[in-house]
């Protein structure tokens, strides 16, 4: 078990290294550079800027220099925002994104699991059927629909909640709900389906027949199995959530890191792109790693080959 974990960790690090390297070369393939502007810079000025950022060196030298700086914890300076370091920009936004994402994640898990808990006791009841239908609606509500519509209804028509900005806790209500609803629906469906499959199994009926109370069965066995797909789904989803949702940040004007995934790439801000990719990939790989360990702990007999997700 420990050996497998170490193995997994090593391969995760290798993947991270590949991601950093690939990004480094990919962004340079894209046409246009950080210093291209509508009003063309004089060639001399552009050359000076390139030199300032070490972009005049041969590509392999730039690469080695970047990796060297990275090992020393230096992500470089942003090319779009001179005077701001990449880590400064990312760590200024991360608390907002992680806070918002964390809140949404927690509420989604609570709501989803709570709903699942309520319905699985009475499978095929009308509550169950309606819950499934409603959650399918929520599942079909992406941020680009639910965010503007909730603004329209709750802040423009009813005037109950702010339409954006971050000036107090009430400004978080709509963004958190917009993020959490589809997520809660998915968690609910995953848990419900999985519990249903388990409780349809022969061992479950046999146990009931032997007089074991269903609640004990649910807690000790069924839930354990039901957690596996939820963990597998939540790992990448929470990585995306914690590093910032672009739509929610755009519609509600929140100062998170999500926008950098697009803006940095559009601006060809090479250092900020790399910083953002590293941040995202590290969190994603970390969560996947944790999910793997959870899956292993939940079901030690699980075949090794299934563990790649």
């Amino acid at each position, binding site marked *: 078990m420990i050996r497998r974990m170490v193995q997994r960790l090593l391969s995760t690090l290798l993947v991270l290294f590949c991601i950093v390297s690939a990004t480094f070369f990919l962004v340079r393939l*894209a*046409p*246009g*550079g950080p210093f*291209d*502007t*509508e*009003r*063309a*810079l*004089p060639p*001399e*000025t552009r050359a*000076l*800027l390139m030199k*300032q950022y070490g972009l005049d060196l041969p590509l392999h030298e730039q690469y080695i220099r970047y990796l060297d700086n990275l090992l020393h914890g230096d992500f470089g*300076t942003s090319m*779009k*925002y*001179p*005077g*701001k370091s990449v880590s400064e*920009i990312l760590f*200024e*936004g991360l608390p907002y994104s992680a806070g918002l994402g964390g809140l949404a994640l927690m509420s989604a898990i609570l709501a989803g699991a709570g709903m699942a808990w309520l319905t699985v006791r009475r499978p095929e009841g009308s509550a169950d059927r309606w819950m499934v239908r409603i959650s399918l609606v929520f599942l079909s509500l992406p941020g680009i629909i639910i965010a*503007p519509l909730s*603004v329209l209804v709750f*802040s*423009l*028509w009813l*005037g109950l909640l*702010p*339409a*954006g*900005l*971050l000036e107090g806790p009430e400004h978080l209500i709509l963004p958190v709900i917009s993020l959490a609803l589809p997520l809660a629906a998915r968690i609910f469906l995953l848990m419900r389906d999985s519990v249903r499959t388990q409780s349809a199994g022969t061992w479950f009926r046999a146990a009931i027949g032997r007089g074991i109370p269903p609640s004990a069965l649910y807690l000790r066995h069924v839930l354990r199995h039901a957690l596996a797909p939820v963990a597998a789904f939540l790992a990448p989803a929470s990585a995306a959530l914690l590093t910032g949702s672009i739509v929610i940040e*755009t*519609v*509600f*004007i929140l*100062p*998170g890191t999500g*926008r950098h995934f697009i803006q940095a790439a*559009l*601006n*060809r801000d090479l250092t900020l792109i790399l910083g953002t990719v590293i941040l995202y990939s590290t969190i994603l790989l970390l969560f996947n790693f944790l999910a793997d360990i959870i899956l292993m702990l939940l079901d030690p007999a699980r075949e090794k080959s299934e563990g790649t997700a």
Partner: protein
Amino acid sequence: MNVPGLKAAAPGGWPGLGACSIVLSIVVACCSPQGEWFGVTEAPRSETLVVNNGTEPETLDPGLMNGSIEGHIAFNLFEGLTRFDPKTLEPLPGVATNWRVSDDGLEWTFFLRKTARWSDGRPLTSHDFAWSWIRLLAPQTAARYASFLFLIKNAEAYNLGSLTNQQEIGIRCPDDHTLVVTLVRPAPYFAFMTAFYVTMPVPRHSIERHGSRWTAPGNLVSNGPFVLATWQMHRKIELVKNPQYHEADQVFLKKIIFLPIEDTGTVLNLYRRGDIDLLFDVPLELYSWLRTRRDFSTTPGWGVYYYKFNISRKPLDDVRVRRALSLAIDRKRLTSDLLGQGQVPAFSFTPPIPGVYAPPEGTGYDPDTARRLLAEAGYPDGNGFPPVQILYNTIATDFHKHVAEVLQAMWKQELGIHLGLEIQEWKTYLKSIENREYDIARAGWVGDFPDPGTFLDLFLQPDGNNNTGWTHADYSKHVVNALSDKDQASRMRSFYRAESVLMDELPVMPVFFYAFSMLKKPWIEGVYENQQDIHPLRSVRIRRARK
């Protein structure tokens, strides 16, 4: 209904208003009649002005700035030798109380006020200006806008590295309160340039201490009516009143908050709810609804929106085709029916500069001649017209898309030619233009100062900011004559001749002159729309509305 293209313009209101859905009736219920204000009208509680600035500024260092987003903040943080009148953009005394121009127009002497101070209390002298300007020109600063000062003697050579002796640059300080500037050619608009953010003084003592981090809140020392209080990226920038400012008694606002909101829908939601007091650049999508509101105001600006023709590609190498394309566009309908933010149809590349320059009248709208020219060029009724793409770029709004779609429809209707639309994201678009890999491309140019030279020197070389591949000996001759001419009247005549050549040859097709629009709440006083979208907020007042 099936006929593609444009319906004929017909007067008419909104059809089917009676048969609208429930959704609509709610909306209509919250719409107010014409001439009303948009959204909340109760005055705010505090003396804080909330402005939407459109996006996150790249820097607060005036020397490194190159855009109006940064400018909006700089005009309130710093003050140059002169400052702009918020309404007319006339240069007013800033740090300099008065100035004198020599008879040949080449030597400018500025007399600085002795009470001028930095926000940390240090005196502000002519040496600060000299240092700031030389810093701007120094090659290692790599200032984006260094060329702005090339009007000063030897400035260009110093910036390009061919001259290393700072003493030879035409900037002198005879004493602490006098600055003498020598120009390479007479420029009646120089006092205008000394109000622009590029020429604002920067605090040497702070820069030498903090390096590139001198613009961080806490480090940033400025000399304008306001100082920087907070700068949270992508959230807000807060300026508070500067007690050290020489005319602090004329500054009424306690605080200004600049928001970096790009999403136009959200901006309007916030404005409507009263969370934002003032915003520039009213979204096109809502003009028809907003232009009747009392919040809305607009003015034509010193900028031209135009299409570039790549004259090395067929069929655009034929001047008759270029003329046909230009003649077939009904700019009046475009500006009044689609844009309507106050844009003016453009038939010349340089906008008229009142009292200075009146451009040639240009070709106008004449679809019959357009069809004839196209037929002469070998494409009667558009037959055999090669595939041509209109290139434009993505921005936070769909502005360029809207314009391109309308022009595409007009060309289809009038000339029977179908041009494709090609959208590229910003940096790819810039690269395509630079490499001249396009057929027709949208472009824009905003002048820096009230002089045709800031528009017409674009076409002196085929590349740079021209990129159409077009040059013309007569044109270049006229422009060069104008640039070195000392007499204002004959300068303008040369510019006029040059522009006539340009509009004859049409390597670029002007579409409209920009308009700068804004929405402001009823309690804001002292903000004016002007030709350069420059908004010094130092004398803005917030008036409590009477109930």
